[in-house]
């Protein structure tokens, strides 16, 4: 049990996919304009991660080494398409906001990376915890980045104005602002890590 908790929590801080592994930055940069987008993207990616990690670990003895990558991609693409269809059916507004970045989860390095680095070597219970931890870590990172960007870029969080009279800095709503925020956060997390050691 302790082992599973460890697998779960490592994705949130020690091996956070965005700030420590630095994977899947493209969708992170693109969708982190508002907190709602960040949460939606995080949930979709978590669902895909969970599903693909679980299935990959279950069929890992059955898939020959030489064709493992195409097999993983088919499994991941299936989950992504299911997530996309569900999103279209139940939350068309979110679907439009995230646009092309939902289908692009297929090539998100976090998902394929976890299948390749973890799920194909571990049993399904550890893989499940690992996928869940990574997904939650990714979601939290997205929420952090998008909260900073939404607040600085449009003066609001989740659509609510926090400080009256705050003049928004437009650049944070644009791609350059995304790079700035992520760069500074990465530096900050590295500083914390170096302090500890």
């Amino acid at each position: 049990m302790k082992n599973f908790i460890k697998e779960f929590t490592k994705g949130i801080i020690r091996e956070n996919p965005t700030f420590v592994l630095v994977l899947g930055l493209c969708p992170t940069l693109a969708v982190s304009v508002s907190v709602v987008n960040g949460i939606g993207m995080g949930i979709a990616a978590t669902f895909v991660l969970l599903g693909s990690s679980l299935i990959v670990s279950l069929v890992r003895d059955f898939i020959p080494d030489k064709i493992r990558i195409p097999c993983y991609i088919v499994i991941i693409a299936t989950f992504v398409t299911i997530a996309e269809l569900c999103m279209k059916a139940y939350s068309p507004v979110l679907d439009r906001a995230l646009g092309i970045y939902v289908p692009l989860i297929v090539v998100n390095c976090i998902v394929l990376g976890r299948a390749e680095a973890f799920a194909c070597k571990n049993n399904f219970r550890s893989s499940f915890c690992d996928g869940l931890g990574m997904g939650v870590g990714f979601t939290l990172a997205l929420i952090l980045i998008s909260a900073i960007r939404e607040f600085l870029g449009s003066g609001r969080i989740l659509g609510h104005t926090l400080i009256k009279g705050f003049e928004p800095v437009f650049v944070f709503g644009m791609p350059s602002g995304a790079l700035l925020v992520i760069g500074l956060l990465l530096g900050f997390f590295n500083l914390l890590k170096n302090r500890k050691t």
Partner: protein
Amino acid sequence: MKEMFRYGFILALICTIAAGLLAAANALTRPKIFAQAQLEERAGLKEVMPAAAGFKAVKPEADKEILYYKAFDSQDKLIGFVFKASGKGYSSMVETLVGVFLDDKISAIKVISQNETPGLGVRITENKFTGQFSNRNSLDLSGVQVIAGATISSRAIINSVMKKAREIKELIKNEK
């Protein structure tokens, strides 16, 4: 050689299972997606033409795309039209739904799809801009004030609405 067939078989098996799952997911969500799209369309039409009680889509042929909508009031009298205009903005195609009365006056417009610069071009969706269109002649929108910092996005809407309004007017004239 034997290996090759084994790999092919395994990959085919995985793909077959995946295809089956996707077919099931599609069958489950399809009616829901269709209903959502229709609901959205209805809500959009109602928003740009609040005076109308019913709408009828006009298509050149049954399986072609919808050209425009006819708007009827509660006595089934034709009171105007609703059409979709789209123009190239700064970083995306800006699509607007426009409601016009029979005398070419605009009832209201609504931006239904855009991907303009956050904080700048995105402001074309705000009421401060779109509200200016109401009660203006759809064929002459020169009086609409563009947003400072979003000139290209604003112009995209103004020009595409005027262009489409003329096209629709031509079309309706030919029909009569």
